[in-house]
């Protein structure tokens, strides 16, 4: 990845936690250019044309070439106006930000999308596991699951039918753990996860449905 930055010292640190004026200025002047089209094509399952379309949409929304967490949250929240999507967006952001540098470049973006849209069920489930595993230690604990569940329910907002109760996320987590945690050790590993999901009819059907959405890239112009 080539970062064109006006400040040499702080080359890779594009953390949004910086507050000083110079850093903000630096953030504004940093430009990110993705890898060449061919390389991206090799790394992902998209064709050149699709990559072009994706990049145009990406660059339109983020002219600087990278998405930081704030922008990501903003964009994602626009799709869920009734509720608060920021927590879930945070987890999603971490899932996309594979090299954990605090920003999502086009490369990250497109590789994530490639898995989600064009990957095998295994790869997708792997990605989902990665999403749930907040601290990326290979295990999903009940607390992590609860956090994710709460975030998902937050997106629903207040006005739901039936009315959302406090225990609903907890109950949901219990159900999930009962299904997934085969050896009842309190955590779900990747194998247990993939195993269970492939067996579950609902989940595999949904995944396959999603696979049929090849038209997604065409929509994005």
């Amino acid at each position, binding site marked *: 990845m080539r970062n064109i930055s006006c400040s040499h010292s702080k080359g890779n640190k594009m953390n949004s936690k910086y507050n000083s004026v110079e850093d903000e200025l630096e953030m504004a002047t940093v430009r990110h250019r993705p890898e060449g089209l061919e390389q991206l094509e090799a790394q992902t399952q998209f064709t050149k044309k699709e990559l072009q*379309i994706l990049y145009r949409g990406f660059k339109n929304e983020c002219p600087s070439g990278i998405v930081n967490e704030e922008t990501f949250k903003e964009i994602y929240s626009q799709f869920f106006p009734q509720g608060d999507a920021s927590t879930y967006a945070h987890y*999603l952001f971490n*899932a996309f930000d594979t090299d954990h540098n605090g920003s999502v470049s086009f490369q990250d973006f497109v590789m994530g999308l490639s898995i989600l849209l064009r990957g095998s069920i295994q790869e997708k489930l792997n*990605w989902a596991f990665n999403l749930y595993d907040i601290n990326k230690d290979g295990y999903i604990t009940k607390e992590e699951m609860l956090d994710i569940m709460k975030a998902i329910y937050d997106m629903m907002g207040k006005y739901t039918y039936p009315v959302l109760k406090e225990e609903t996320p907890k109950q949901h987590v219990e*159900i999930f753990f009962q299904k997934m945690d085969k050896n009842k050790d309190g955590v779900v590993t990747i194998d247990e996860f993939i195993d269970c999901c492939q067996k579950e009819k609902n989940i595999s059907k949904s995944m396959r449905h999603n696979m049929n959405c090849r*038209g997604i890239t065409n929509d994005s112009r």
Partner: protein
Amino acid sequence: MAAGVAAWLPFARAAAIGWMPVASAPMPAPPRDKRRTQDGLIILNVSGTKFQTWRNTLERYPDTLLGSTERDFFFNEETNEYFFDRDPDIFRHILNFYRTGKLHYPRHECISAYDEELSFFGIIPEIIGDCCYEEYKDRRRENAERLQDDADTENNNDGVLPDMTLRQTMWRAFENPHTSTLALVFYYVTGFFIAVSVIANVVETVPCGTSPGRVKDLPCGERYALAFFCLDTACVMIFTIEYLLRLIAAPSRYKFVRSVMSIIDVVAIMPYYIGLVMTDNEDVSGAFVTLRVFRVFRIFKFSRHSQGLRILGYTLKSCASELGFLLFSLTMAIIIFATVMFYAEKGSTASKFTSIPAAFWYTIVTMTTLGYGDMVPKTIAGKIFGSICSLSGVLVIALPVPVIVSNFSRIYHQNQRADKRKAQKKARLARIRVAKSGSANAYIQSKRNGLLSDSLEQASKEAGQALVSKTSSSFERQHHHLLHCLEKTTNHEFVDEQTYEMSCMEVSTVNQSGSRSSSISSQHGLTATCCSRRNKKTFRLPNSNMSGSRPGSVQELSTIQIRERPPLSNSRSSLNAKIEDTAQLNCDQPYVTAAIISIPTPPVTTPEEDTSQSPDYSQSNIVKVSAL
């Protein structure tokens, strides 16, 4: 949702995979995208400047011109692009709206031009982005005010409409003194009397020398009590009459009574009447004296006469919050300093600062840097605080004053601009009028020339000469043809103003005289029969220019013609003005016929134009004319 974010929707949908393992129920089937339009570049040619964008960009907003099928109307097949004959500079902003979802308003563009472009492309201005919305609204408001101003002044400056009631005329005269001489006289008279009244009030109190038998000087008011009383009575009578007249003339009496100026009027004359009513009782004489103070309000009546005064009043009203702040902060400071000074001077003997309210006077005088010197601090502490007081006074007063000043200056300049616009408006309206009458006259002129050329053509054909015809643009020709068609439809003709006016005058004089004594009226009488025969139809008169242009044979008739023609063409011009005057028109026919007859080659030309009217008319009238 912003348009740009739509590009991320597929991503959000893809990310929904994250929900699936924990979903309580199976996911619904995804929607089938029926419309699989291939994306492609669209070329938009706006007056030569080529813009290109993706088709999908434009289709983000399907209820605008560019986003809907409406743009197909502008498609140019040969060049395979969409051509718009509009301003490319403004179009740039419109296209940016499609791209970014935000509409910006460029400050240097004229607001009406911008609005026009927006409405052409079907974009509502309410979606202008926050960054530019304020500016846009301000400019729009200014424009609307200006237009409203123009409309108002136009309504006010309209020539006297004959159907205005007396009441309306009076009101107009009161509000705009320049509309008639009587109004102006009234305006000056009232102004004079206001001045007289005010001066009398002032002079009344001047000591006028002693009257015999008294030691002290008497004020003039008491010495010449009767004279002053008479003067006062006269002024109050004038003011009362003025007020009553205004009250009668006001279109909305309730609103008038509530207006500031009328309240001032009432307050100005009430003391006199109250004084008349009250007897010279000792108890109430004090109150009576107070009432006389209100007579000074008469000076406010001058604000009807002075625009500057009105602006000042308006400024003060609009700066009410700043003035309030000034007052509040001064009060605070006064109380603080008065307290401090009182306690500082408490120790000093024979101090004038007997109480805090007493110290108020000192504080005010010091803060406004007046410094009368009737109360001065004697202790050192008092002097220190006194100096702090005077320094801070300057600051506190100086702060809100620039705001008030700038407000005044803004309103004053606005007024000046409005006046300038009004003055320019006269010139502008005159230009418009000239242009309008120019085009109308152009038609009449072309008709004459057409006739002239026709007749010349005839003449030249007879003489075997070539004719040079006057060239006019195709637009003009088509426009004139249209007017011609209208003439044919209504069987009336277009004429110019002077001829119409003269005909009106002629008709009125003829109607007044009503006798058959004069030759004209005899002719009138003779042809009156014809008139009655042809009640509704009037026919055109070939044109007024004949006298000058026609050679020799018409000369002897030219004098008659001159007299006859004007009425004729005037009657025609009534077409332009009011239809209800056609009655007049009918009676003018005799004149018409006379003029027609005077044309040497009429039988050839008039029938061409005058298909409805038979030449026999002219034939019969030839006799009459020659009888003249």
